[in-house]
């Protein structure tokens, strides 16, 4: 079967690119390992959060000041402004309700109560547009008894430092207590699986209504809604006070929900999503990639006019490091990385780490290079790209989304 485009990798960038192409009638296949760093998502997207340790207020303006090797610099601030609007549309078409603007960052609240700059945040999550004008005065922070994946005391302290009055209130319900029987079951995803029926949600709401006291907003860990936001809506309707969610430690229910929604939309548009498979090698002819072999399809290579490499960074095995070198393991395309192992990392764990900036090399059109020459029909998007740092710059999800759509545009223009 011949496809228009084959995308290697199944995370955020792969789905955004796949949706963008499928929407215009292209036949797209995504080869997805089934794991994604969206598992660590905090309910927000970040375009550009930080430069040199300082929070960025206006990401679109700040993009113009980034170095040449940053993926954004290859796309340009004007096009990014336009693409950022299309990203919002892509999310709402997928049923993901987010708010925010590329012109001005707002603040998301981390599980440790730190305010971090964000571009888009899920509507059911706590979001602060202006630190001098908080969305509530008095918060009831509801702590699920025996659930350790929110450091509640740290979260409460952080919120107080931002100016909220915070009551920490521990609660449980029969449904939650029964999860406890197996000591390793108290994770955000298991709670989300358990808290789905109207009865279970009503028992939570009863606790919130009776315990929230004087607070004018109720905060809960993000443990609702495996597939969509309807469980949250049900709970909000049962709860007398406004309710907001705060991200938990992984696994992130919000991140997995967004992936489910994007996947669903991609399939609705006619896309093929091969779950649990990975690309293992490719065949080149001249300056073109002609086919890709996957672990499961074996001797049936996937052929296509265009290919997209969206295999992610080291975490996702899109990049590999061994004893001596850093390389891209599927196609062997060129990477930007130091040869000397000593320089990959820094001594302090919280210092910037050079390896975060390593990744595949591309030309201005995001085409991968092999032996210094661009492969005409192979583009790289997302975390596999070199020149950015999701941790220190807060640009991970932004690079994934913006490069995904820019690459989709290039692919269509190519025809």
């Amino acid at each position, binding site marked *: 079967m011949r496809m228009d485009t084959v995308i290697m990798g199944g995370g955020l960038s792969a789905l955004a690119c796949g949706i963008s192409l499928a929407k215009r009638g292209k036949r797209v296949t995504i080869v997805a390992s089934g794991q994604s760093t969206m598992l660590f998502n905090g309910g927000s997207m970040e375009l550009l959060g930080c430069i040199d340790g300082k929070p960025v207020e206006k990401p679109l303006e700040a993009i113009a000041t980034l170095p040449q090797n940053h993926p954004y610099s290859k796309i340009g601030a004007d096009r990014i402004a336009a693409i950022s609007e299309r990203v919002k549309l892509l999310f709402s078409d997928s049923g993901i309700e987010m708010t925010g603007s590329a012109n001005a960052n707002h603040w998301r609240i981390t599980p440790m109560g730190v305010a971090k700059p964000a571009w888009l945040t899920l509507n059911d999550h706590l979001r602060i547009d202006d630190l001098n004008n908080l969305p509530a005065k008095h918060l009831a922070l509801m702590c699920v008894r025996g659930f350790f994946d929110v450091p509640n005391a740290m979260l409460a302290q952080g919120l107080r430092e931002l100016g909220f009055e915070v009551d920490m209130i521990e609660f449980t319900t029969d449904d939650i207590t029964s999860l406890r029987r197996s*000591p390793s079951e108290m994770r955000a995803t298991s709670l989300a699986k358990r808290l789905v029926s109207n009865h279970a949600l009503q028992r939570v709401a009863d606790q919130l209504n009776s315990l929230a006291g004087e607070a004018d907003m109720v905060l809960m860990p993000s443990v609702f809604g495996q597939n969509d936001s309807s469980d949250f809506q049900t709970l909000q309707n049962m709860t007398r006070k406004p309710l907001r969610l705060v991200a938990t*430690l992984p696994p*992130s229910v919000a991140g997995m929900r967004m992936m489910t929604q994007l996947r669903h939309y991609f399939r609705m548009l006619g896309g093929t999503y091969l779950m649990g498979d990975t690309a293992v090698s490719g065949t080149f002819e001249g300056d073109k990639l002609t086919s890709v072999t996957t672990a499961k399809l074996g001797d049936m290579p996937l052929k296509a006019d265009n290919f997209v490499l969206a295999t992610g960074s080291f975490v996702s095995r899109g990049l590999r490091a061994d*004893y001596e070198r850093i390389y891209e393991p599927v196609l062997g395309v060129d990477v930007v990385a130091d040869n000397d192992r000593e320089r990959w990392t820094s001594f*302090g*764990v919280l210092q910037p780490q050079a*390896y975060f900036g390593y990744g595949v090399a591309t030309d201005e059109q995001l085409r991968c290079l092999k032996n210094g020459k661009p492969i005409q029909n192979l583009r790289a998007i997302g975390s596999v790209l070199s020149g950015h740092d999701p941790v220190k710059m807060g640009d991970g999800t932004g690079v994934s989304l913006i490069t995904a759509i820019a690459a989709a545009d290039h692919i269509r223009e190519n025809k």
Partner: protein
Amino acid sequence: MATNDIYNKEYDVIIVGGGATGAGTARDCALRGLSVLLVERNDYSTGATGRNHGLMHSGARYAVTDGESASECISENMILRRIARHCVEETDGLFITLPEDDLQYQQTFVEACQRAGIRADVIDPEEARRIEPAVNPQLIGAVRVPDAAIDPFRLTVGNLLDARLHGAETLNYHEVESLIINQNRVEGVKLLNKLNGERIEVRSRVVVNAAGIWGQRIAQTAGVNISMFPARGALLIFGHRVNNMVINRCRKPANADILVPDDTVCVIGTTSDRIPIETVDDMRVTREEVDVLLKEGVKIAPSLATTRIIRAYAGVRPLVASDDDPSGRSISRGIVCLDHAKRDGLEGFITITGGKMMTYRLMGEIATNAVCAKLGNTAPCITANQPLPGSEEDGPNQGDLTKRYSFGQRAAIGRHGSLAARIEKDNDIDNALVCECEGVTVGEIKYAVHQLHVHNLVNLRRRTRVGMGTCQGKLCSCRAASLMGEFNHDVKRAQEDLAAFLDERWKGMRPVAWGDTLREAQLTASIYEGLCGLDTAVNLQGKEDVQ
């Protein structure tokens, strides 16, 4: 305990150093009825005690080169199997000969073992491959000896616990700045409390210097010179346990020739380099050390080539030059006990050093004998027969564990022996797992915080193994920090503590940061910095390294 109480007291003996030797000496002194204070500048077992293979030598390794050490080892080995069985895993060991080694040496080795009283059975290479499938299949000879694995952290804590049960007092994070000297007599120590900056003086009739390589500086503050020759050894921990038995090379001791199984992981080591005394606090492992360890390790067990390395660490052996040879040419690995009254004319001061973790109990006995001689105490030493707390005869045995206890409870019994009974497990929250790799429960953390002198997450790791497994503290460190913040009612400190813990883990990961170890590092950074913003919440710059 309030510091005033200590300030106003005069002890029979103050022991400086909270490694295995100091702990063993404190226990012995307490069991003989002396009033004891032990002081440690960092956490317990932060020096050489916590930075070795975790190997319970049979003595075979020293049989050819140092018969006396070999005899001491086998005798202590048999004692520890009785008194510290909850710290010991009886694995046995192999001494293998590879094609590049001289098979003649095996005969020399076996004869030397027999002279030292160490059982050494020559076995067929085929038999060696059968009982230890991880061994290099090209081996041409093998000898089976009674080596074993031992947990030095648990061993040290066991000795400290027993010392306390017999009236000893112990202080970690108290550094000796100088000795109190009055007319050629040591009368106590001047201490800095590193947690609050307070300075106190404590008096005693005798001071025992059991500070390992740092003992040279302690002695110097009293104007006494001991020539120590720091020998640094680096080791690598692999992500799972490839071998069931200790595997050694049957040749003259050399770099990276011992592979020891420790709980869920295994450890290869060591390198051996003389270093200047000024650099003993720099424990960073170099690229060259890693390269040597890997190259040699793969010869012992080829599967190490494809096994993930989870961290690298280094320790410093306190080797001592004999007094008639200050050049250091005849350095001893044997036990050195110096009575400074006889040697230097300074009364009330004893140094116990040299030796090995293996012989900590004997070192404690020798030092305590010297203390008792000074104080006119005639009580006999009973440490060779009295089991450590956790190893009593009536404790739960491994056989019936699987049926009656949960994973977390079984893991805790493995770590604390019969003391595990003190861990709260009455409600579902106490049984909840904080660390899934190592099976550490909320109840065990409570127990450690309240009874095992835990001030920070690194202490907690040494007492419970939290964060020591393959994930190196990815999620459990946050859960544990959060719980400790609740117990101590100090959230800011818990966050700084968490950052310091991650930094300490990173120190061991960085020298081997490729492959899956680099992946784990990126994952950890994504969670704690990207998702949580820990780097914004705390500032580690200018902070002293956590110990």
